[in-house]
């Protein structure tokens, strides 16, 4: 009987978390991110969000300034604004890294000298990033973004590393192609 109750509570909790995740995903989709207006591929002309601004989105300093004004309506407005902003950033970062990994997979398929250790490291970073993004989305929806600055900065660092690794891989692939072209002359 006890086991059934525990299983019921766990499944209810899972359903609730699933609902929260779904709500967060939908509300982030409703936001008007600029990149949706751009043609496919143009997104990479944009810069990734610098860590300084990520830190601001998740910072408590602005909240303390608003809270000092002792206006519940301002506090509510601030919480809503920061929550949607934080969700937008998580979704954008996740989507950007997904695109980078798709590009990487495309390049890797054509590459003849793959380093498996590097590939595994890159993939584990990607998996870690996607997992933390999922945790961030649910946590932002449940508790707001102001407690999550450390985790957000970790995601920002991870995404930059993946971006750099992809750039290095791209440069190396171009170099190899260049050497081959010179050899064929």
């Amino acid at each position, binding site marked *: 009987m006890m086991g059934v109750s525990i299983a019921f509570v766990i499944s209810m909790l899972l359903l609730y978390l699933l609902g929260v995740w779904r709500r967060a995903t939908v509300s982030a989709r409703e*936001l008007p*991110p*600029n*990149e949706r207006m751009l043609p496919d591929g143009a997104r990479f*002309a*944009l*810069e*990734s*969000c*610098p860590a*300084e*601004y*990520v830190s*601001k*989105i998740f910072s408590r*300093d*602005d909240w303390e*300034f*608003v809270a000092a*004004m002792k*206006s519940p309506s*301002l506090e509510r*407005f*601030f919480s809503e*604004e*920061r929550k*949607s*902003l934080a969700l*937008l*950033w998580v979704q*954008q970062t996740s989507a950007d890294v997904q695109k980078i990994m798709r590009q990487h997979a495309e390049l890797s398929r054509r590459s003849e000298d793959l380093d498996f250790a590097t590939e595994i490291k890159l993939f584990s970073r990607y998996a870690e990033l996607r997992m933390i993004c999922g945790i961030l989305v649910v946590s932002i929806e449940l508790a707001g973004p102001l407690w999550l600055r450390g985790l957000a900065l970790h995601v920002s660092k991870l995404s930059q590393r993946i971006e750099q690794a992809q750039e290095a891989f791209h440069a190396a692939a171009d170099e190899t192609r260049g050497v081959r072209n010179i050899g064929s002359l």
Partner: protein
Amino acid sequence: MSATVKLVSVQDAYDDILERTLARISCDLARLVYLASTRDYNSGNYHHDGLAARFSADVARKALEIAHRQVFYRVSAYSLEELSEEVEIYLKSSRESPLEVLRAWQNLEPYRIAVPMEVNPAVARLFLSNIRLALAIFRHRQQPLPPRP
């Protein structure tokens, strides 16, 4: 060689706009609005007759674009407290009544055009969100305090 010359010219034009025009504007938010106003709504290209006459239309365009981006990123990095002060200076420096400007800014959101092209969407959204909050804070501060019992 011509690329170097062009880079030097853009730097000179940038310094020129900084010294002659931007330094005379009261706050960064007003500088941002001014720089955004030099951009054509349809083409997205920047124009400044004086700067184009001293350098060239192309160099002036590039210098204005760089200045716009720099001021935008600086304003976006402001804390909400700093931005609230900027909004207050900006609204009070207008020829119109500050409350009239506030009403127009809250209803029409003209500050949206202050975002340069091809900036990071999250930074653009942070800027817009902070401006909305700073305007709400200004309105809140204008309300008279309730009488003490």
